[in-house]
């Protein structure tokens, strides 16, 4: 049985796709088409299923009816007003949280004493689900924008604080030594070394933070009520108008996409030295 058979393994030249432009173009077109076609087909299926009664249209109204309701809401002026209010709450809280979080992160990153004094307390508070403190803020500020902005600020603060502090602590000594050897300290050290060295990591924190800021705003609007995209979704449920809820959900998603996209773009703009993996592979 055990007859050994000698074989020759040949590594044949198989042209990589990149060297065959026509094949490559066809492949790229297919990929792009699939990316759009899959969700379109699924939404189409939903539409047909809702219209033919295969699924309960009260829970899953036909996408077209949600779109129509959304357009109506824009014409009524309600939707844009709610978008404006939600965006305002997200952005004010986000900016405040970022400023305070960055200052705390840099301060604690650069000063071991400050870190020893504040880190245990902040780390303990970090584990508190932020939405849990909304009732406190509601009591303090009453039913207005203020408690929502406050809770977004607190949430974003923790993200930016931790990303900044860890980035500052992780700055390789070599960079600090290189600057120190030229007599650099204090503000110049911050400006030329600490700030730019921590920026890529802070940009990640900002990107994560903006998503969480929107999440917290929408969920707070469920509770606080009165206005905002979150309230719109929640209220539609109460009135059993789920087309409105779906229109609200899509709106919330769009706000998220726009915010994330903007922050990501800004992040790349302020850290031009961070070369992406793809462009490095392309030999740049």
């Amino acid at each position: 049985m055990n007859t050994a058979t000698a074989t020759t393994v040949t590594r044949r030249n198989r042209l990589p796709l990149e060297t065959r432009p026509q094949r490559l173009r066809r492949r790229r077109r297919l990929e792009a088409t699939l990316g759009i076609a899959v969700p379109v087909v699924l939404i189409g299926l939903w539409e047909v299923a809702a219209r033919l009664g295969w699924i309960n249209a009260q829970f899953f109204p036909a996408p077209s009816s949600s779109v129509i309701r959304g357009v109506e809401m824009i014409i009524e002026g309600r939707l844009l007003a709610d978008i404006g209010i939600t965006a305002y709450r997200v952005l004010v809280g986000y900016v405040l949280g970022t400023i305070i979080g960055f200052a705390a992160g840099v301060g604690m990153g650069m000063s071991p004493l400050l870190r020893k004094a504040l880190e245990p307390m902040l780390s303990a508070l970090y584990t508190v689900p932020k939405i849990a403190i909304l009732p406190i803020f509601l009591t303090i500020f009453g039913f207005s924008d203020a408690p929502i902005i406050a809770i977004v600020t607190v949430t974003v603060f923790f993200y930016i604080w931790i990303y900044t502090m860890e980035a500052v602590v992780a700055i390789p000594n070599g960079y600090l030594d290189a600057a120190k050897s030229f007599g650099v300290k204090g503000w110049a050290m911050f400006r030329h070394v600490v700030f730019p060295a921590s920026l890529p990591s802070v940009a990640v924190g900002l990107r994560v933070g903006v998503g969480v800021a929107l999440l917290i705003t929408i969920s707070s609007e469920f509770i606080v009520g009165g206005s905002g995209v979150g309230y719109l979704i929640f209220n539609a449920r109460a009135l059993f108008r789920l087309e409105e809820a779906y229109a609200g959900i899509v709106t919330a998603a769009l706000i998220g996409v726009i915010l994330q996209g903007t922050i990501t773009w800004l992040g790349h703009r302020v850290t031009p030295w961070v070369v992406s993996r793809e462009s490095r592979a392309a030999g740049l």
Partner: protein
Amino acid sequence: MNTANHSAGLADRPAKIEVRDLSLVFGVGDKAVHALGPINLSVGDGEFLSIVGPSGCGKSTLTKVVAGLLPPTKGEVDIRLAGTSIAPIATVFQDYGIFPWKTVLENVKFGLTVNGVTGSEATDRAAMWVQKLGLAGFENRYPSSLSGGMQQRVSIARALAVEPEILLMDEPFASLDAQLRELLQEELLRLHESDGRTVLFVTHSLEEALVLGDRVLVLTARPGTLLDLKDVPFARPRTSEVRESREFNEMRYELWSHLKDQVHIGVTGDAS
């Protein structure tokens, strides 16, 4: 500078750096590591001193003390400065020397900017050193897009742009390939011979130490103390061809035979 007397006249030169009973201990109690010393040393004005020794012998520590990055545990280091340069001491490191977030030109400008030279004067000076180190055309590139050799040129340009009285180099060519290292050694020889500034050059290569240095300081295994301090007899201007001569190889062999035992001590000492 009279090149014929370059190495012969070392003893007559005024000392630029005077190391007296220098010791460095990291940590305290049981965890204390005696890294360096006691060591006494005098480095002449305009001298190129190569420093070699087994890994962990404190070669880098010595340059960090001179750079003011580490305070001595015991003893003192006197540095006599004429006060003529923008920054009196500049360092070229092996890694993490140049800032990835600054372009080539911004990196070279760095030492100028932070020492009060700004505007077009800083740009002109930086541009000159960019030119001198063969980096023209790369001014606006970020270091990550440059080869290791180019990055180290940026580091050298940045150090020289402040026209320091003392240049400290801590294994600057260690992560480069052999051909590139020889090329940069040649460039460094030219630069040193034209400006005659005091250089402390840490390396783990005896060959490099001999090609570049006026003297070679050999340190013992940790804690690093003076094992050998040899005048390098090769006349300047020197090229790296000097390494082909018999004298060169005899000298390298002699230094290696001294160093070999120390390397052994360093290795077994660490393992126990």
